[in-house]
């Protein structure tokens, strides 16, 4: 091999950098996040495993249904009816974004932009109407 003295060390440095995420935390993936589930509610729109996998798709479907197709048929969760939507359904039970939504999103390094527009109950209360 030509330039063995440069290439082999270079490759080693490259491999070190590329595998950085694996070994930096001692080969552990960190603690699996435990999101705070809402008190008193056992049911969600769909079973937990399905929601974990598909809640993004479900929210997109709701968004298109409500905004674009004028399909505002309510969803039933645990006997109560909710309007389809992040603020009007999900966050009625999952009221704390930091303790529920963020635990998994931060762990997975995902940054959904939902809350740029959609209000969490905490944010909404910060500028509530005072009578």
């Amino acid at each position: 091999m030509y330039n063995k003295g440069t290439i082999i060390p270079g490759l080693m440095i490259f491999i070190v950098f590329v595998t950085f995420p694996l070994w930096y935390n001692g080969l552990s993936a960190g603690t699996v996040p435990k999101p705070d589930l809402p008190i008193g509610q056992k049911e969600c729109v769909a079973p937990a495993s399905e929601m974990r996998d598909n809640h993004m798709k479900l929210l997109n479907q709701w968004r298109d249904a409500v905004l674009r197709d004028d399909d505002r048929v309510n969803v039933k969760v645990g006997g109560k009816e909710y309007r389809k939507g992040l603020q009007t359904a999900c966050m009625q039970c999952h009221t704390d974004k930091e303790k529920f939504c963020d635990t998994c999103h931060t762990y997975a390094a995902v940054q959904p932009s939902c809350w740029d527009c959609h209000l969490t109950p905490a944010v909404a209360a910060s500028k509530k109407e005072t009578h």
Partner: protein
Amino acid sequence: MDTKRRKFLKIAGAAALAGIGAPAIVKLTSSAALASEAVQHETAAHGEVAAATGVRLGMVIDMRKFAEQPELLDQAIAACNKVHNIPHFPNDRKNEIKWIWKAPYANVFPELESIHKSEMAKKAPFAVLCNHCDNPSCVKACPTKATFVQPENGIVGMDFHRCIGCRFCMAACPYGARSFNWQDPRPFIDTYNAEFPTRMRGVVEKCNFCGERLALGLEPACVEVAKSAGAMVFGDLNDPDSEIRKVLDKEFTIQRNPAAGTKPSVYYIV
């Protein structure tokens, strides 16, 4: 490379390209058909109105009633702003977000301008909002269908999730009904309505005829305030027995810039 192998590679490459491109072409042509379905409305003989189908929401604004109670219009505007988390940019023509607002007659109807106007037309502030046109030029312009005509009710909807902020719709609107979020609006919102989202920077917004309230059986926020004085009537323009049609049959109404061909749904009694 011998010619047979070269020829084979050429054919294989072309077939691969066709295979990759085919789904895209199918998607493009199918969505084009859908777009024309959504936007298409009754084709009428020249000058006539064809038999209308479906619900077509519209509004009659009786300026005579607003002129009698000037604070009513301010209340209607405030109701809309509260319900929809509309930010408040005082005296800021650059950043202001307006869904419904007031302007003098001369500005609302510049093509109906005349030298000798009635007292009311000279003095009273007129209500201005998106006209939810039947043939909207903003929908024609939007490159992503972020703004679209809802076929179920004739509302010109705005999908803030899809808007890329190109502002072509703002250039296209003949009525100046659209606003853009030049920055994050949240610091400028006075109180939050927890039932409705805010918007983020970089998207266009406008009156949405309170689709979310209509779904709950309520009337639009502005209409709810103005209804008591009879200053606003809201309903289905396609239903000959609706209150709004009765008002339109009885009173002479004008519309903003009818020559633009956009067929607005908002009528004014002056």
